[in-house]
């Protein structure tokens, strides 16, 4: 398990990048794995469903690629980077609660092959994300 920071009751992982819309991004070469943060899943509470993107779909930074359904609301998941979706976590269709139970691991949502290596510079580092959710 990678090292983590606790902000109140929320966990932030050091080895990830983040977005203002509470997605996390794990970069591995030119592949990015994306999910939602512990903060996001706790705010959404019980997740009961998810609309997933399609493999092969081209996405641009900021596109809505998935929608998470909780009893509270339906929330859009935005692509933090541009590229092609190469893998989707289909197990979430049957067990969307994995996002609540394991947001950074089993609850990953999709993988993108990146178009632009420089785009990731726009992502938040973990310490910036910690600042963002601090005090909430």
């Amino acid at each position: 398990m990678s090292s983590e920071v606790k902000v109140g009751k929320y966990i932030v992982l050091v080895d990830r990048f983040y977005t203002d819309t509470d997605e996390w991004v794990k970069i591995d070469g030119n592949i990015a794995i994306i999910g939602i943060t512990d903060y996001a899943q706790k705010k959404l509470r019980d997740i009961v469903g998810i609309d997933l993107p399609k493999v092969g779909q081209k996405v641009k930074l900021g596109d809505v690629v998935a929608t998470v359904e909780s009893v509270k609301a339906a929330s859009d998941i935005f692509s933090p980077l541009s590229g092609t979706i190469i893998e989707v976590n289909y197990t979430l269709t049957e067990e969307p609660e994995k996002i609540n139970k394991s947001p950074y691991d089993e609850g990953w949502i999709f993988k993108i092959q990146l178009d632009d290596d420089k785009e990731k510079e726009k992502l938040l580092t973990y310490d910036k994300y910690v600042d963002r959710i601090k005090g909430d």
Partner: protein
Amino acid sequence: MFETPLLKTEEKFGANIGEFAGWNMPLAFTSYLEEHLAVRKEVAFFDLSHMGRLRVKGKREEMEKLICRSLNTEKGKMIGPTAFLNDNAGFVDDIMTYKVSDDEILIVTNAINREKDIKWITDNSSLNVEDLTFNYVMIAIQGKKIWDYLQKPDLEFLNFQLNTKFLDENVFLLSRSGWTGEDGIEVWATKETAEKIFEKLLNKNIKPAGLIARDSLRQEMGFVLYGEDIDDKTNPIEARYWVFDISKEFIGKEKLVEILKNGVRKIRIGFKLKKGVRTIPRNGYKLKALDTEVGYVTSSTYSPYLSRTIGMGYVNSSHALFGYSLSVVIRDKEYNVKVSDFPLI
């Protein structure tokens, strides 16, 4: 914003606190799915301190004029659910009534309607209203197997006692009642006593549940929530909410009789989405028969007991086709919505 007197205790116990009807309340402790199933299969308890609680004193005739059900019952009995209606037979509020004596009743109101109800009672009668909401915490213990965990009180369903004991603590009110469809008891007690009861329930292996679970439990039963499923423009006939005695006089009765004679244009129905469809239509989403809009959704949730999405709404009475599947569009996709009667479980 108000907050439950038990907030600190509940936060220590991991409560996810959120706003409901102007109150900071525990929405969940672990997951609403688990808490919901605990009630359906075993037992759990809820903090309902947001519910308005009023003591109303005065002439019985005046009370009868306000309340749609007859108060002609023994002391110590609960009457309800019943309602206050406006002149158009729309709901001012749906309430539970407790008959203390011929000149005293207690009323539980919806949290959002507490102040409105006090004003409405005062405007429409010379009754004396005392707001007890902030004097007592209200705890509901509910569950299929509740009596495996607690000693059964000497109370029939919908009966109550005042100034009695619960778990060896002095409580103001103890009733055999609830809003989950399971057997249970509800207690009104001071903050200090309620904290002791909280501890004692934990020691009996009864865990707390939050308001999200209460919402999904009531939806399975087809119980309405004021502000979502009924409001001041909805009447009890179209809501199929049998809160009145048509043989007595009360505000709104004249209109109610007229509605009964003429029939209603829309009626409240329950619905179920197909198993495996993991999505929830929200309040206001349209229900369609083929391409024709015939109704709308008022409440919906995912039922952990049925493992499917359920809910309720209104359809034109021409389309109250129980067993038929209407459709609802959620994010550009169409889903089947099977019209079902209550309870949905």
